[in-house]
């Protein structure tokens, strides 16, 4: 089949999907007797209309960039890693261990150590499903999703029985030391004379996330390993014929993927909560799948999609705060966007492709 122009693939399809999702969301809001225009205005001003809103949007986006990249890297080797949630949970545990038990002299050293620790924990959690897939043929979709449950049980056990301070009812660790407090965007931008709201949790991890985007781009398209990953993803038999080991590629790709998901811990555990709480990931691992689908396998796309989902999360919170739209419905709105941009992608793509082909035939 003829290909569509790139701009249609990258911009037009997500845009149409978004408009469709927004339209159905508007109908739903109308149905419960609220004004869709007001709701949209509230979401946009609440998420993008102030540095405060941007701070939260970027905080959520940072989470989604890490998990989105994790899914993207695995996609290139045609591995469907839906264990980002569990890998991010374990990554958070790794970050918490690094932050709690070592008296770091400065946040920058702590950030490096916590990043390594989080990535190692996340990668270790992905290593077992990867090995099972490579050596035993156990399907990675099944094993990674099951490992999400195990991760949640592990975290439970550790928080309730080991890391909870005595006498506390909350299943959470104690706060990390103030010396390793990560600079927020407010603190980073202040020396440049740029005023940024103090309240939101967006922090230096956002910059780490951007660096991760660049690193993933370089890895996939500028290294030999990236070439092998892509070759393996396109045709396994061809890759084997070219001397690429499926076991090696499967395991390495999943390690990188799990490591990226685990890195999320520096944002939500070290940057925001500054302690490890139960359910710190809050579904970011699953949102990462939608982000990767929307990002079409490219880090730049992942970055933009993550910002969009950050907007949806922060906008959703504003709706919950200032309207009487029930929180279940806010989840419905978020889900509609995922449904249209991720699952129903072909619904928009196929007709659009036919239109483009018809146009082209006319020309020629």
């Amino acid at each position, binding site marked *: 089949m003829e290909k569509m122009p790139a701009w249609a693939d990258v911009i037009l399809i997500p845009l149409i999907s978004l408009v469709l999702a927004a339209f159905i969301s508007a109908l739903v809001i109308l149905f419960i007797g609220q004004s869709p225009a007001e709701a949209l205005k509230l979401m946009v*001003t609440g998420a993008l*209309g*102030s*540095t*405060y*809103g*941007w701070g*939260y949007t970027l*905080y959520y986006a940072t989470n989604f960039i890490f998990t989105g990249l994790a899914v993207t890297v695995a996609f290139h080797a045609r591995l469907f890693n839906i264990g980002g949630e569990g890998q991010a949970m374990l990554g958070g545990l790794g970050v918490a261990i690094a932050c709690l038990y070592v008296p770091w002299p400065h946040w920058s050293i702590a950030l490096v150590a916590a990043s390594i620790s989080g990535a190692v924990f996340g990668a270790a959690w992905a290593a077992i499903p990867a090995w099972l897939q490579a050596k035993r043929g156990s399907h990675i979709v099944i094993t990674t999703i099951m490992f999400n449950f195990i991760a949640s049980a592990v975290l*439970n056990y550790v928080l*309730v*029985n080991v890391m909870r301070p005595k*006498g506390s*009812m*909350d*299943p*959470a660790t104690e*706060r990390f030391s103030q010396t390793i407090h990560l600079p927020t965007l407010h603190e980073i931008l202040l020396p440049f004379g*740029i*005023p*940024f*709201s103090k*309240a*939101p*949790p967006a922090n230096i991890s956002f910059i780490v996330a951007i660096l991760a985007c660049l690193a993933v781009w370089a890895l996939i398209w500028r290294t030999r390993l990236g070439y092998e990953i892509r070759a393996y993803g396109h045709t396994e038999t061809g890759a084997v014929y070219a001397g690429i080991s499926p076991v090696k590629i499967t395991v390495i790709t999943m390690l990188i993927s799990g490591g990226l998901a685990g890195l999320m811990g520096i944002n*939500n555990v070290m940057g*925001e*909560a500054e*302690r490890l*709480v*139960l*359910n*710190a990931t*809050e579904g970011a691992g699953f949102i990462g799948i939608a982000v990767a689908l929307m990002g079409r396998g490219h880090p730049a796309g992942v970055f933009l999609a993550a910002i969009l989902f950050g907007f949806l999360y922060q906008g*959703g*919170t504003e709706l*919950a*705060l*200032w309207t009487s739209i*029930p*929180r279940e419905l*806010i*989840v419905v709105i978020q889900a509609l966007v995922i449904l249209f941009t991720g699952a129903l992608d072909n619904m928009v793509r196929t007709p659009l492709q036919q239109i483009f082909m018809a146009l082209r035939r006319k020309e020629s």
Partner: protein
Amino acid sequence: MTFQKSLLGASAAIALTAGAALAEPAMIYDLGGKFDKSFNEAAFAGVTRWVDETGGEFLEIELQSEAQREQALRRFAERGANPIVMAGFGFADPLSQVAPDYPDTKFAIIDMVVDAPNVRSIVFNEHEGSYLVGMLAAEASKSGTVGFIGGMDVPLIRKFACGYAQGVKAANPDATIIANMTGTTPAAWNDPVKGSELTKAQISQGADVVYAAAGGTGVGVLQTAADEDILSIGVDSNQNYLHPGKVLTSMTKRVDNAVYDVFSQGPDMETGIFVMGLANDGVGYALDEYNEALITPEMKAAVDEASAAIADGSLKVHDYTSDDSCPDLQF
């Protein structure tokens, strides 16, 4: 970001505050949601009573995520909401961070103590109310074995269990108490199926009265107890009506009164630690048309006597959280 954006942000903030009446109270429900048939719903009942009586405006949010705890607190405080009430011990950490930043805003937290000059910490003497229902359980039991089913295994719920055990032993020193917890995570607050299984397990060990201190999980406990024709004891709200004649009584924890008081007193409310016990009707046991046939005049007399003795201080019920131990029950 850019200067223009911060300008936009400032104008947006002004636009938001301009529409708001000054000093509306705000209510923040925990992750369980306001219709959990238990703790959050009791808070919602208090809000509803205040609205019915005053017709006042208020703000509310049901949390969706952990990150929203601090965010909701700050947003309501910046908007000028006062006082801001939050239900649940999970708010203790965020509130201790946020409260000093808004010294002119009053906060109220239920079930936890946060030490700040503008915070009212409301805690309940659940062990006192549990002591009373424990006495009733021991007297109503024919087998001499009674059960306790807790929600999440936290010190707060052990406090319920410990008070209950002391009440049981006071009424019948030879009684056996079986205590189980549903789980160790917040999911244990809302697992009626597991509540039902635990009830059956306790019945097979001879229990014929079961006390559920488990939030939404208790619905399953009460249902199974009614199905198996034994007695149960409800918690937090008066749950006697759920299975008339099968629910012996309910240990009432008047979260609704606490929320109603804060809303009524508005921005001028007093801060500090407020202990709601038997003496000030913060806890108690429920007696209504659904269970009056189950409570004999002798039982009522004995419990009311103990209640008066606890209220005036002549009878002390041991509080588990005071030293993390219980004289009458092992965990």
